[in-house]
């Protein structure tokens, strides 16, 4: 227990405080309201790839530490129709890694009246303003695969070719032969073949993810095989994930139920759908786009640190 000191230098902590200040002023100037929604909530997340940590109060009431402030912020959006942002700690039951700390700072914001294109443009402006980023480039998920793998991730033939490449790859051949989940195949291929080819110096928005990976994004009305979901990559880091937000409460309920069934198949603990969010969507969510950005990762890029534990006061293992 002797190693009580922070791994972040005072200079990095000053940069951290400065970045918080810069972000707050960026949103203040644009009339985006800061909110701070609860960390402890009655519902967790149904997504089978995200695990909540939870706790109980002295009355034995179960509370989930939030993995993202998304649901609570959407309730405020439905009630007040005002653009919002939040800078808050979130918690995910994930292993520690170079880019991962189970407790981390999320910057999440919602723009009422924006679509995904407009929000991506604003993300580009934000990165330029607070992190001296060069202009952001855009690339669809499909084009990213076509450029770097010469395969179309949206057609059965293309997916088959991508799967074959993974079956032939020394790194993945052992388990790829028996893998049938298309999204898993695409995610591994993206990670092994596409991501390393993306520009390091320029932030890149990968747009129009396959509809099967829509999460909470709307399906594209012009092309139902894709969703209006995007991710931002910069300096080899996955920095943000955003949507033109799904506002249809029936569709949202269906996706929750799909998630819950997938959790059961994977023998993961049951998570009830957040009935407050469904009720808020029934009331009506204004058309909006939203994005969640890893604040600590942005600070890593700004300070050129290669490990997240160097940009936060105390990491999970020393907290």
């Amino acid at each position: 227990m002797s190693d009580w000191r922070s791994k972040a230098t005072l200079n990095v902590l000053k940069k951290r405080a400065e970045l918080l200040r810069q972000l707050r002023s960026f949103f203040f100037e644009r009339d985006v309201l800061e909110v701070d929604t609860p960390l402890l909530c009655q519902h967790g997340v149904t997504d089978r790839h995200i695990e909540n940590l939870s706790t109980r109060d002295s009355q034995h009431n179960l509370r989930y530490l939030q993995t993202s402030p998304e649901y609570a912020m959407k309730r405020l959006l439905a009630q007040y129709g005002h653009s919002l942002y939040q800078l808050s700690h979130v918690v995910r039951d994930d292993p520690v890694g170079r880019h991962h700390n189970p407790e981390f700072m999320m910057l999440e914001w919602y723009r009422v009246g924006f679509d995904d294109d407009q929000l991506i443009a604003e993300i580009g402006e934000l990165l330029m303003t607070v992190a001296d980023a060069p202009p952001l480039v855009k690339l669809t998920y499909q084009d990213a695969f076509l450029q770097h793998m010469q395969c179309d991730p949206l057609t059965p033939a293309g997916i088959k070719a991508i799967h074959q490449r993974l079956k032939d790859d020394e790194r993945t051949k052992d388990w790829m032969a028996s893998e049938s989940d298309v999204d898993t195949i695409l995610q591994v291929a993206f990670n092994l073949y596409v991501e390393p080819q993306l520009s390091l110096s320029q932030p890149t928005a990968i747009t129009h993810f396959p509809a099967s990976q829509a999460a909470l994004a709307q399906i594209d009305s012009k092309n139902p095989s894709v969703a209006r979901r995007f991710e931002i990559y910069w300096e080899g880091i996955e920095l943000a994930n955003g949507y033109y937000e799904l506002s249809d409460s029936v569709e949202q309920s269906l996706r929750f139920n799909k998630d819950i069934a997938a959790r059961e198949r994977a023998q993961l603990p049951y998570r009830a759908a957040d009935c407050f969010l469904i009720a808020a969507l029934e009331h009506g969510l204004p058309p909006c786009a939203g994005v969640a950005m890893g604040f600590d990762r942005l600070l890593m890029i700004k300070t050129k640190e290669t490990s997240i534990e160097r940009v936060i006061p105390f990491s999970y293992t020393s907290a």
Partner: protein
Amino acid sequence: MANYSTNEFKGGLKIMQDGEPCSIVENEMVKPGKGQAFNRVKIRKLISGKVVEKTFKSGESVEGADVIELELAYLYNDGEFWHFMNNETFEQVAADAKAVGEAEKWLVEQDVCTLTLWEGNPINVQPPNFVELEITETDPGLKGDTAGTGGKPATLSTGAVVRVPLFVQIGEVIKVDTRSGEYVSRVQK
């Protein structure tokens, strides 16, 4: 042998891959904000020595490898096997040429080596980082020369050949770094 979940992966963990025991060199978790998490792992195959990259789906289990490392003193070579002994239990282990490999030229009697055993059989012999060996053959150097002129080759009692400074002579004992095969210093007898 126990199975290990990818969550337990860390440097030094011994697992089976491609029918060969392997040691994890580096483990990096890749967890996208949305979707499947992976472990990108660098492993060293303990028999071939090759380092390869593997990607595992997080949460999957991998068979562990029954691998132990023992510190044993080198005894002698009987022409076919190299014999080692545990200095505390006096238990002996015999390693074949395949396991000894390159280490052969650094084996000095009584030196403590690290032997890797898979299912009880030696698969690798790691000599100490530094060994002291006598020079059996080298060109007589120029008198008064100092180190740092590139040196000359010298053959050691085990057959190993290393570059030594010109002033080092036949019959002298030198200290060698077995990891790089480089001369370190002369040893006072």
